[in-house]
C-alpha cells in the first residue's frame, strides 16, 4: 500500500494490537470524516471484548457503506475516494468503510444563467450534492441514474439521468454508447465530455444544452430528454436539443404566458438583428446606396464624411473592439470589470467617433447587435451567434446583398444538416410538428398545452387531461 502512494505522508497507516490481533487501519487523512472515524470505528475496535473477524466487523460497526475487497488496487482506489480500509491479520480481504468528507462550496445562486424570477439555486461541483438536488426535485422511483466511469488515467463518475417511463430508449442508448466508447485519459469538465460526444464537432452551434440550473435540468428530463451529470463539474448536459431550446429560459415558464411568449419572440428577433444588422449596414454602404431612404442617407453621409476607411473595415474594427471589451470584462475581477465597461464603452466609443474613425450610426448598430447577442439564455449560443457575424460582415463587404443571402442560405442549410443525438436539430420547424410550436417558439398557456413536445420522442406524450385542464372548480357558498 505504501508503495502505491509513493510513501506519501498523506496515507495514514495505523496498526492496532488488540487481544493479540494486529489490525491495520488505513486512510488518507484529509479525505475522511475524522470525527466519525474515531467515534464509530476506532472506538468500537479498541473497546470490543471479542476477537474481530471480517464478519463481525461488517456487522458490528454502524456504518452502512461497507464491503470486503481483496485486491490492493481496488483498496487503493477506494481509499482515494475517501474510504477507510481495515485489515485484520490473517484474513484474506480487507473491509472498506466509506466515510468520505468532501469540501464543496454548497448550493449557491446561479451566476451564468441567472433568473430574475423563479428558483435561484445552481448546481455545484460535487456530484453528490447535485444528485441530492436532482433526487429531491424528482422524487419518483421512475428516475434512473445510470453510473458510468470515464477516463483511463483519472477516472471520473458520469451519470445518465432519465425517467424510465418517459425517455426514449434510443436516446438513452445513444448517450450510453457514445460515453462508453470514449477513450480519453481524463475528462476535465462536463463541457469537455459534451464536446467529445456531440454529433458534429465542426459546427459552431452547440448541440447539447449545458446548464447549471437544476430546474431547467429537471424540466427537460420530465419532458423526456436525457441528462448527463459529471463529477467535479457544475454544468449538466441535456439532449437531444433543438436549436430553439437554446432560446428558451425556464423563466418563460414562471412568467405569465403572454409575457413568456413575448420575451421568447424577442430573443429570436434579437438573434436575427444580431446576425443581419451590421452586414446589412456594410452591404448598403458599400454597394447599394439606393436601398437607404434619401432622408437617412443625408445623415449617414454626414456622419461618415470624415471616416477614411471602407465600411467593412470600419465595422470589423468596431466589432473587434466590442469583443475585446467583452473578453476583458469577463477576465477581470467584478469590481474592475464595471469600470472597464464604462471606460471602454463610453470613452473609446466617443473618442473613436470624434477622431473620425467610425460613424455614430455604426456605433449604434454595433452596440445594438452586441446587446442582442447577449439575450440568448445559453452562453454558448450567444457566442456562436457572435462568431458567425464576422464571416457575414466580410462577405457583405465583398459582395453586398448577394454575399449576405449566400451566407444566410449556407447557415440555414448548415443548421438543417445538424443533429443532436441523431435527432433533427431544427425540430419542430423541420421536421414540421405544429403541436410542438406550443412550447418552443411560443409559450402558450399551460391549459392549452397538454402535450409534451414529440420531437424529443417521449414515451408518453400526454401531460395531463386536456379536457379537464380548463375547469376550475370553485367552492360556491350555499
Amino acid at each position, binding site marked *: 500500500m505504501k508503495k502505491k502512494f509513493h510513501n506519501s505522508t498523506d496515507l495514514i497507516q495505523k496498526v492496532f494490537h488488540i487481544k493479540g490481533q494486529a489490525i491495520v487501519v488505513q486512510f488518507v487523512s484529509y479525505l475522511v470524516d475524522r470525527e466519525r472515524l474515531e467515534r464509530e470505528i476506532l472506538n468500537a475496535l479498541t473497546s470490543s471484548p471479542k476477537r474481530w473477524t471480517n464478519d463481525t466487523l461488517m456487522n458490528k460497526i454502524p456504518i452502512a457503506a461497507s464491503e470486503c475487497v481483496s485486491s490492493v488496487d481496488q483498496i487503493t482506489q477506494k481509499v482515494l475516494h475517501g474510504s477507510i480500509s481495515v485489515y485484520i491479520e490473517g484474513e484474506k480481504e480487507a473491509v472498506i468503510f466509506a466515510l468520505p468528507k468532501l469540501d464543496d462550496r454548497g448550493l449557491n445562486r446561479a451566476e451564468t444563467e441567472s433568473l430574475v424570477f423563479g428558483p435561484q439555486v445552481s448546481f455545484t461541483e460535487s456530484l453528490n450534492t447535485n444528485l441530492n438536488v436532482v433526487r429531491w426535485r424528482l422524487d419518483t422511483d421512475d428516475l434512473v441514474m445510470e453510473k458510468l466511469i470515464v477516463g483511463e488515467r483519472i477516472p471520473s463518475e458520469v451519470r445518465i439521468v432519465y425517467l424510465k417511463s418517459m425517455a426514449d430508449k434510443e436516446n438513452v442508448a445513444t448517450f450510453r454508447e457514445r460515453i462508453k466508447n470514449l477513450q480519453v485519459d481524463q475528462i476535465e469538465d462536463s463541457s469537455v465530455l459534451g464536446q467529445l460526444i456531440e454529433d458534429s464537432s465542426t459546427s459552431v452551434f452547440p448541440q447539447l444544452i449545458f446548464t447549471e440550473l437544476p430546474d431547467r435540468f429537471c424540466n427537460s428530463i420530465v419532458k423526456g430528454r436525457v441528462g448527463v451529470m459529471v463529477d467535479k463539474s457544475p454544468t449538466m448536459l441535456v439532449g437531444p436539443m433543438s436549436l430553439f431550446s437554446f432560446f428558451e429560459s425556464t423563466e418563460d415558464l414562471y412568467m405569465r404566458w403572454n409575457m413568456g411568449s413575448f420575451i421568447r419572440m424577442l430573443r429570436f428577433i434579437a438573434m436575427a438583428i444580431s446576425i443581419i444588422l451590421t452586414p446589412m449596414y456594410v452591404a448598403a454602404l458599400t*454597394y447599394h446606396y439606393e436601398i437607404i*431612404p434619401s432622408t437617412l442617407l443625408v445623415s449617414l453621409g454626414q456622419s461618415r464624411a470624415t471616416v477614411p476607411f471602407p465600411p467593412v473595415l470600419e465595422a470589423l474594427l468596431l466589432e473587434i473592439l466590442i469583443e475585446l471589451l467583452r473578453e476583458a470584462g469577463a477576465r477581470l475581477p467584478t469590481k474592475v470589470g464595471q469600470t472597464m465597461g464604462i471606460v471602454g464603452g463610453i470613452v473609446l466609443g466617443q473618442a473613436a467617433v470624434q477622431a473620425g474613425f467610425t460613424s455614430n450610426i455604426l456605433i449604434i448598430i454595433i452596440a445594438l447587435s452586441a446587446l442582442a447577442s447577449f439575450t440568448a439564455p445559453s452562453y454558448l449560443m450567444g457566442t456562436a451567434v457572435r462568431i458567425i457575424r464576422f464571416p457575414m460582415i466580410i462577405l457583405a463587404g465583398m459582395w*453586398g446583398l*448577394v454575399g449576405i443571402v449566400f451566407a444566410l*442560405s449556407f447557415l*440555414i442549410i448548415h443548421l438543417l*444538416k445538424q443533429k443532436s443525438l441523431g435527432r433533427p436539430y*431544427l425540430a419542430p420547424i423541420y421536421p414540421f410538428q405544429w403541436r410542438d410550436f406550443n412550447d418552443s417558439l411560443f409559450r402558450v398557456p399551460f391549459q392549452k398545452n397538454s402535450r409534451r413536445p414529440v420531437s424529443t420522442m417521449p414515451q408518453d406524450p400526454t401531460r395531463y387531461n386536456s379536457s379537464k385542464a380548463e375547469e376550475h372548480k370553485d367552492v360556491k357558498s350555499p
Partner: protein
Amino acid sequence: MNIHIRLNPDKAVHAFYVFFIIHTCQIGAGLMGVPRILFLEAGVDAWVSVLVTGAYMHVLVLLMLTILRNYENTDLIGVQMDLFGRWIGKGLGVLYILYIFLLLLTVMKNYIEVVQVFIFPQIPIWLMSAFMLILMVYSILGGFRVVVGTSFLFFFLTIWLVLPVYKPVTFMDWKHLTPIFMSSPMEILAGAKQVAYSVLGLEILFFIYPYIQNKKKIAAAAHAGVFFTTILILLVTVVSIGYFSPDELKETVWATLSLFKIISFSIIERFDFLAVALWMMVIIPNIVLFGWIIIHSLKRLFSFPKKPSLYITALMLFFFSVLIEERIGINFLTSITGEVGFWVVFVYPWLLYAVLLLKKVFRKGNSNEKMDPN
C-alpha cells in the same frame, strides 16, 4: 439494377412535404419573366393560358401517379427500365439526366444574369455560380432529408415576397385586362406553352415518389402544390398586365421583379434590390432538387458513388455556366431547354402511359403473370 427501391423508413419523408417539393421545384427562374413572354403570345387573355396550363398540370399529376401506382415502389428510371428493357431504359435515363442538367444550367444562368442586370453589374459569373454550386453540394451531401428540408425552409423564407405585391395592385388599371377573350384559341395555347416553360420541374414527382412514406396522401399534396404554382403565376401575370402598359410590358424582360421597384418601406427605399438578392433563396431549392435528381439517377443507373458524381456534376455546371457568356447564348439555352422540357415533361408521360397499357394488355394475353417483375 433492381427496378424497385427498398429503403429504410428513416429515409422516407412525409407526403406533406410533396407540396413544397413540387412547388419550389416549379417556381424559380421562370417566374421572373413569365408575364412578358406570355403577354407576347396571348395578349390580354394571358390569364386564360395560365389556367389552361394549370388544369393540364393537374391532369399530368394524375397521369404520373397512375403510372407510378402500377408499380410497387419505383421512380422514373425504374419505370423506363421495365417498359423499354434494360438498354433502352438506361439510354432514356441518360437523356433524362442530360435534360435535367440543361434545366439546372438554364436556371443558374438566368438568375446570374438578373443579378448582373439589377444589382451588381460587376459581379463575376464564376463567383455567382460558385455561390450557388457550393450551396447545392453542401445541401446534397446531407442526403435526401436535408434536400427536402432545404426546399421546405426556403419556401417559407421567400413566400412572403408575395405580400408586397399589394402595392402594385393598388396601381393597377383594370382596363388593361379588357377586352377579354379576344385572342384566338391558338394564341392562348401558344401562351399556355410559354407558361409550361416556366413551370418545368413537375418531373420531380417521378423521382421522389419512392421516398414518400404515406403514398395515399401524395395525390392531395401534389395537386395542392401544382395549384399553388398556378395561383402564383396567375397573380403575377394579372398584376403585371394591369400594372404595366402593354408597350411597357413588352419591353420589361423580368416583369415580376420590376413589380418590386415601386415598393419602398421607411427603412428600405428600393425593395427590388432586396428581392433580387433574396431570389437566390427561390433558386436554391430548384438547384438542389435538380442536382439531387442527377446524382440519384446516376447512382440508380450506373451505381456511381454519390460523392464523386456530385463533385463532377458541380464542376461541369461551373464550367458550362462560365463558358456561356452573352445574352444571346442564354436566350438560346433557355428556348432550347424550354422546348425540350415541354416535350419531356408535358408530353412524354403520355407515351409512357401508352406503353404501360400496351404492355399490360400484352402480358395479360400471354399469361396471368402479375405486373410485378420480381
